[in-house]
């Protein structure tokens, strides 16, 4: 199956991951975080980029922004004037002291207002020793080299470096923003789809553009058609509709049905962690009374804690449903 699909899609040129293929190359095209992106846009036009730290959850366009910015700033000089290191590269203390410093000292003729750029992706995975070594380099060579760091949590960057950089925060993309981009890709790749399929992809992605595109491509190359069922088959998550039914049954005091639904899921081989993660997200978005939502979330959180402690049994899941039912009964109108 996999072989045949790869051979058929290779007739449309490369078999690139769509994440790469549709990665915006201009800062303007970046989806979401309008305020931050519009500032980067001006910097791309005017030059003189300050040292930057971009922080935010995965799949929100941090790396894309930096790469696009560097491309726009440096154009044809990109190859020689940009040093890109990510977590897969060796970024130990001696590499920072040697490679980055060498690069900072390298002479590249650039138009005024342009500087060499060092891109450190996933900078929060650098050891604090390596970051310490970076500290002086940032300062000494600031008139020829600028740094752009991307990370998930800015607190893992040591303070001296935070102090030398302007911090830009990225937040999760909204469902509409992801949908907009998905529609562009779907159009370009001629993917047959139904709207529910895209909805399912957005649900599985949870604000992560990269995952959305990956799931879309996986579904397409696996089944050639994007509908709800295929998406959840590919992503191998418990079907949200199924989980939603469980929650509805609990709310309607049909405990037996709820347990039955849960048993079905469990028998399909989903791990309790998967089930409870989906359950939590369903509850988060389910329209119910405020008190119930609060109690449900609390109990689900505790159940998740127990499961993470190693008690990942079916009994815990059933117990959770029972607790949800008790909460439901307590709040019930007489």
């Amino acid at each position, binding site marked *: 199956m996999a072989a045949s699909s790869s051979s058929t899609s290779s007739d449309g040129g490369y078999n690139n991951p769509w994440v790469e293929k549709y990665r915006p190359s201009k800062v303007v095209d970046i989806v979401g975080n309008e305020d931050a992106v519009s500032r980067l846009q001006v910097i791309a036009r005017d030059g003189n980029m300050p040292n930057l730290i971009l922080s935010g959850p995965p799949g929100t366009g941090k790396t894309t922004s930096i790469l696009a910015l560097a491309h726009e700033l440096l154009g044809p000089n990109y190859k020689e004037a940009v040093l890109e290191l990510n977590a897969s590269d060796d970024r130990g203390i001696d590499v920072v002291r040697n490679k980055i410093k060498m690069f900072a000292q390298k002479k590249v003729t650039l138009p005024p207002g342009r500087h060499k750029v060092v891109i450190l992706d996933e900078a929060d995975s650098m050891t604090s020793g390596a970051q310490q070594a970076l500290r002086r380099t940032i300062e000494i060579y600031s008139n020829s080299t600028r740094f752009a760091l991307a990370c998930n949590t800015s607190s893992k960057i040591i303070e001296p470096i935070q102090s030398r950089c302007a911090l830009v925060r990225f937040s999760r993309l909204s469902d509409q923003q992801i949908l907009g981009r998905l529609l562009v890709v779907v159009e370009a790749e001629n993917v047959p789809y139904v709207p529910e399929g895209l909805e399912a992809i957005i649900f599985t992605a949870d604000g992560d553009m990269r995952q959305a595109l990956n799931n879309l491509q996986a579904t397409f190359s696996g089944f050639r058609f994007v509908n709800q069922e295929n998406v959840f088959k590919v992503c191998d998550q418990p079907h949200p509709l199924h989980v939603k039914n469980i929650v509805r049954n609990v709310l309607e005091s049909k405990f037996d049905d709820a347990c039955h639904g849960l048993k079905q899921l469990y028998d399909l081989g989903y791990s309790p962690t998967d089930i409870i993660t989906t359950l939590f997200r369903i509850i988060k978005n389910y329209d119910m009374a405020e008190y119930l939502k609060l109690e449900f979330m609390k109990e689900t*959180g505790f159940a998740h804690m127990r499961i993470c402690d190693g008690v990942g049994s079916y009994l815990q899941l059933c117990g959770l449903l029972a607790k949800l039912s008790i909460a439901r009964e307590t709040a019930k109108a007489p």
Partner: protein
Amino acid sequence: MLDKKLLSLEDDDNLRSSRSNTKSKPRSSAATTTNPRASKRARLSGASLVDKIRLSFEDFDEALSGFKVSSGYERSKNTDLWVDKYRPRTLEELAVHKKKVEQVKLWFEESLDFSKDGLRNNVLLVTGQAGVGKSATIHLIASILGVTVYEWNAPIPTIWQEHVHNSSSGLKYTSKLDEFENFVESTRKYGVMASSSTEGIKAPVILLIDDLPLANGRHACERLQNCLLLLVRSTQIPTVILITDYDKADSSDQTARSMEDAQSSLERAGALKVAFNPITKNSIKKALQRICREEHCKVTTMEIDQMASASGGDIRHAITSLQLFSVKPDLNHTKIKSPRPGMDDSYHGNEQTMYSGLDSGISSCFGRDETLSLFHALGKFLHNKRETDNVIVSDCSNSLVHDEFARLPLKMDAPEKVLSQAHGQAGRVVDFLHENVLDFVSEGAIEDAWCVSSYLADADLLLADLRGKMSGHNKTEDVPQSAGASVAVRGVLYGNKQPCSSRWHVIRKPKLWQVEQSSMQTKKNLREQRNISYEGSRVADISVMATEYSPVLKWLSYRASPDAFAGMGEETDEEESEISEDDEIQDW
């Protein structure tokens, strides 16, 4: 300019010859001047002879390391970082507290006074958190007094792999610590570098060490400390050592601790310590306003205010943020200029002024202090505004619930959405809510307080695992995180049945943090004590230190002190106060 270039060319030759003379000396020991900013300043203000010569040296150095020599002359207006461009040039512009500056200046004058030999304090230790102007102060005072600053600059090392690859060719791998040791050794023996003696003029010189090598592990730590001790005790040149403090939660970190150890050992060796405090908000504001004037950028005072408080006393970060912030795309102009009326006055917290109702749209994305962006969201949660009129019971599920548990619909987006917009971390949110929520529960509604507290406690438990370690972004860790945050926020919203009428309250910083910080401080002190009294042995457990070791030590010194220092009543007083301090700590 031509003259200068010629001069520099000649000097290059001179220097080259002098370099070749001293070639036997390893290059690593020669501290090269790396102070491009000072040189630029010199270029701008018609330089004295000394300056010119120094300048040429630097040009030489720059050429050596592959800089464009010309870049220094015709740098156009907007290619510099503002942090460099608006480096303080006079003492008035320096945002550091006057007293500290005076202290540093005094040290400079004393240590450069060659007339009185003998007991001079040759080493100054400057500490402070990142970006409070430690090195700026040193450079500025040095330039005012006409002192040349030499910095130790570690040479570029061989990468370990290359070393392994070429192990036969004789390329040696030296760690930064090795190089630092070499450097200290050579400065002790030879004083500063040959280059200054070739000038023939005896310009006063100080040595600046900003880049202490990282010491990992006990052995390396001890080596670094010994090295520093040696430097303090025997150096001939006035030396300034800069150490950055890490006062935040990561001080359990190994590197931070090793720096603290180094600090205390330096002090014991007789270095003069000047601790810089975080820069006050007003000074930062003043500096930012000055830059704004000079750059002609339109930033409202309110935004400057906000930026200054978001920087947390870090002026460098404030200026960098301003540079980014001043890059204003046109489409946002209208948005920026319409802060909500009535919300823009400030409120005084117990320590800092906090802002609760600012337009969170723009500025919240910037600044180091994450807490600031939270206030908007916290205000929403705590005030708990709900629809009162024309309530339509749209969802059937709501009608199923008993009256006692029913609540009116919220006047805001889903709490989770508000949270994610505020970039809030769950732990912080819970801390803040816990600290502040009781102000917002109406008098006498004890049931509400019960309810809120129990939910907050649950949230705390849910987040308990995350507190210790830094949370990653795994899916599995996501659930307790968001569950905790949701339970806390929704618990507060739900439990606070009759919120107070909407008068203003200050949103305080959690006291809990202060407690944590002071407990950390005490632990640090204990650790230091241990180092002082027993260089060699290491008692691993803090609790042992607190309960057995330090009381015994105190008891011994208390008994010893009356006989040994009969007249010194103050000493014992101090001791007693220390004891009482310790008792408090043990209560926690």
